[in-house]
C-alpha cells in the first residue's frame, strides 16, 4: 500500500524537474517524460485486483471518525488508473516527434505531467475538497495546453474553454460548500453515512449544482459549447488526452463517484442522467455529420459517445454500469487513436479540411489502416471492442425495461456508422489530389503509438470474457453499483 501516494508524487515531481534540466536539451525531456509515463503504467498494472485505503500523514481515523485525507484504491480507481496511464503513455510516445515543430518542449511535458497528476489525483482521492483541488490542477494545465501553439484559433478556443471551465469549477465548489455545511465533514465515506436518508430541498440544490458543474466538465449537451472549439485547436496528442481522458475522469468519473457512492442513486437522479445521456447521444451524432474539419467531427462524436456512458451509468444496474465503464475504456482507446490519426494526417498534409483531402491510402498505409480499425470500432462493427460495449449498453437498457432508450441507442449507433464511413471515404479512399502528391508516412514513434492503440482496440473485446471480466471490470462495477456500501468499506479498514 505504500505505492499509492507515489502515483501522485512521481508525475508531480517530474513536472517540476523537467523544466529544470530539459530547457536546453529537448531529447532529455522526451526521455524523462516517457520514462515517467511508462513507470506509471507498470505501477498501475501491478495494482490490479488490490484494494486499500491510505491515510496521508499517518492520520488514521480516531474512534471511527476520519480526521485526515485518504487515498482510496478500489475497483473503479484501479480501472481509471489503468486507463489514464495507458493513454498518457501512448500520447507521450506520439509527441516525441509531433511536438518537434513547437518550441519549448520541456514546458509542454511539464504541463502534460501536471494534467496527468491532476487526473490520477481525482481518481484516487477519498476526500471531497481534495477532489476539487486535483480537478483544478488538471483543468488549469489543460487550459494552458489548448493554447500551446498561440495561433488565432488556439487562443480563442482556450479562452472559451477557460471561461466555461471556471464557471463549472465554481459551481462544483459551491456545491461542496453546501454539502460541508449540511454534513460537517469533507470525507466522502463519512459524508455518505451522514446523508443516508431523504433529501430536503437544500440537498437537491447541491445535487443540481453538482450535475451542472460536472456536466460542464464532461460536455453533456446543454453544457457542451466549449468542446467543439477546444478539441480541434489543441495539438494532436493533447486532443487525444482531452477527448479520451480529461472529460471522462474529471467529468464522468467524479460525477459517478459523488452521485452513486456519496449521495446514492434515486429514481429522480437516474432519470436526469438517462435524459441527459440520450440527448447528448442524439444531438452529438446529428451535429457531427455535417462537419468538414476532421478534428471537429471527432469532437462532436466524443459528445455522442459520452452520452452512451452516461446512459449506462444512469441505469444503475450491474450490467449497465459494467457496460458503461467498458465503453469508457474503449472510447478512451479508440478516440485517442482517431485523434492521433487526424494529427498524423495534419502532419503530413498540413490541412484538416475534408473537402481538400482524398486518396491518402497508398501514401500513408499505417495511418489509414489504423484509422479504419478505429472507425469500425467506434461505429460498433463486430468483432472490435466498440461493438461489445455498445451491445451490452443496449442489452442493459432492455433488461431494465427501458425500451425507448434502447431504440435511441441503436439508432444513434447506425448514424455513427454512416458518419464514420463517410469520413473514411473522403480522407483515405478516392482519387489522390495533386496538392498532396508528396505526402509521406509519419515518423517512427508516431507509428508505434498508433499501432499500439489499434492492437488494443482489436483485442480489448476479449476483456468481456468472464475470466478477464472478473479481474478487471466486475470489481469496478460492483463498487459503483453498491453505492452506499462504499462508506463502510472505507471506515472499516
Amino acid at each position: 500500500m505504500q505505492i499509492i501516494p507515489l502515483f501522485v508524487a512521481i508525475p508531480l515531481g517530474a513536472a517540476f524537474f523537467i523544466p529544470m534540466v530539459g530547457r536546453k536539451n529537448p531529447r532529455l525531456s522526451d526521455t524523462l517524460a516517457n520514462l515517467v509515463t511508462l513507470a506509471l503504467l507498470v505501477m498501475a498494472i501491478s495494482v490490479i485486483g488490490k484494494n486499500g485505503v491510505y491515510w496521508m500523514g499517518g492520520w488514521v481515523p480516531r474512534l471511527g471518525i476520519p480526521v485526515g485525507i485518504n487515498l482510496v484504491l478500489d475497483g473503479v480507481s484501479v480501472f481509471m488508473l489503468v486507463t489514464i496511464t495507458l493513454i498518457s503513455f501512448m500520447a507521450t510516445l506520439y509527441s516525441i516527434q509531433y511536438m518537434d515543430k513547437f518550441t519549448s518542449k520541456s514546458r509542454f511535458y511539464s504541463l502534460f505531467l501536471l494534467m496527468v497528476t491532476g487526473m490520477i489525483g481525482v481518481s484516487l482521492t477519498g476526500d471531497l475538497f481534495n477532489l476539487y483541488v486535483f480537478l483544478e490542477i488538471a483543468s488549469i494545465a489543460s487550459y494552458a495546453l489548448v493554447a500551446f501553439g498561440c495561433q488565432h484559433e488556439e487562443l480563442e478556443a482556450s479562452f472559451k474553454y477557460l471561461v466555461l471551465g471556471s464557471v463549472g469549477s465554481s459551481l462544483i465548489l459551491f456545491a461542496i460548500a453546501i454539502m460541508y455545511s449540511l454534513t460537517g465533514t469533507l470525507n466522502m465515506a463519512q459524508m455518505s453515512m451522514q446523508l443516508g436518508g431523504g433529501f430536503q430541498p437544500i440537498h437537491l440544490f447541491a445535487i443540481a449544482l453538482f450535475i451542472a458543474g460536472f456536466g460542464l466538465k464532461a460536455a453533456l449537451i446543454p453544457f457542451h459549447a466549449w468542446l467543439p472549439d477546444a478539441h480541434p485547436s489543441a495539438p494532436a496528442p493533447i486532443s487525444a488526452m482531452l477527448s479520451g481522458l480529461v472529460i471522462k475522469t474529471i467529468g464522468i468519473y467524479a460525477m459517478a463517484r459523488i452521485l452513486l457512492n456519496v449521495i446514492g442513486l434515486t429514481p429522480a437522479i437516474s432519470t436526469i442522467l438517462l435524459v441527459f445521456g440520450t440527448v447528448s447521444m442524439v444531438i452529438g451524432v446529428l451535429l457531427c455529420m455535417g462537419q468538414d474539419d476532421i478534428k471537429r467531427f471527432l469532437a462532436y462524436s466524443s459528445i455522442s459517445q459520452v452520452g452512451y456512458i452516461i446512459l449506462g451509468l444512469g441505469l444503475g444496474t450491474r450490467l449497465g454500469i459494467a457496460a458503461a465503464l467498458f465503453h469508457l475504456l474503449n472510447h478512451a482507446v479508440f478516440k485517442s487513436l482517431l485523434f492521433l490519426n487526424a494529427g498524423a494526417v495534419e502532419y503530413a498534409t498540413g490541412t484538416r479540411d475534408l473537402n481538400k483531402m482524398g486518396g491518402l491510402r497508398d501514401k500513408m498505409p499505417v495511418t489509414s489502416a489504423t484509422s479504419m480499425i478505429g472507425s469500425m470500432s467506434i461505429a460498433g462493427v463486430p468483432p472490435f471492442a466498440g461493438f461489445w460495449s455498445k451491445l451490452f449498453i443496449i442489452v442493459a437498457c432492455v433488461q431494465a425495461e427501458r425500451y425507448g432508450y434502447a431504440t435511441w441507442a441503436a439508432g444513434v449507433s447506425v448514424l455513427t456508422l454512416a458518419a464514420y464511413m463517410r469520413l473514411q471515404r473522403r480522407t483515405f479512399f478516392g482519387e489522390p489530389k495533386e496538392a498532396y502528391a508528396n505526402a509521406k508516412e509519419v515518423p517512427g514513434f508516431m507509428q508505434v503509438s498508433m499501432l499500439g492503440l489499434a492492437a488494443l482496440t482489436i483485442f480489448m473485446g476479449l476483456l468481456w470474457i468472464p475470466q478477464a471480466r472478473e479481474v478487471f471490470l466486475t470489481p469496478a462495477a460492483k463498487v459503483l453499483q453498491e453505492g452506499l456500501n462504499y462508506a463502510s468499506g472505507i471506515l472499516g479498514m
Partner: protein
Amino acid sequence: MHYALVLMLFMIGLYGVVVKRNLIKIIISLVIMETAINVFIIMIGYRSDGMAPIMQQTMAPEVFVRTSVDPVPQALVLTAIVIGLGVTAMTVSIAMRLYERYGTYDVREIRRLRG
C-alpha cells in the same frame, strides 16, 4: 439573509460572464464569482459570538473548541483563493495574446471558429 446577499453577488458575476462583450469585463466577472464563493465558504463556518480560531498560550483546548469559529473553511478558502489567482493570471495572459492577434477585445469580433 446574509446567504441571500452572497448568492446575489454570485449572480452578478454570472450575469457579467454571460452578457458582457468585453474580454476584460468577462475576466472581472469571473473574479467576482470566485470571490462570492469564497465568502460563502467562510460564512458557513461562522458561529454566533465566536472568536477567531487562533489558539493562545493561556487557553485550554476545551475553551477553544467551545468558542471559536470553524477553522476548516478558512483553510479551504486559502487554497481556493490561490487557485483563483492562478486561473486569473492565465486568463489575463490569454486575453493579452488575443488582443495582440485580433486587434480587439470585443467577443463578437473574435469568432473564427463556428459551426
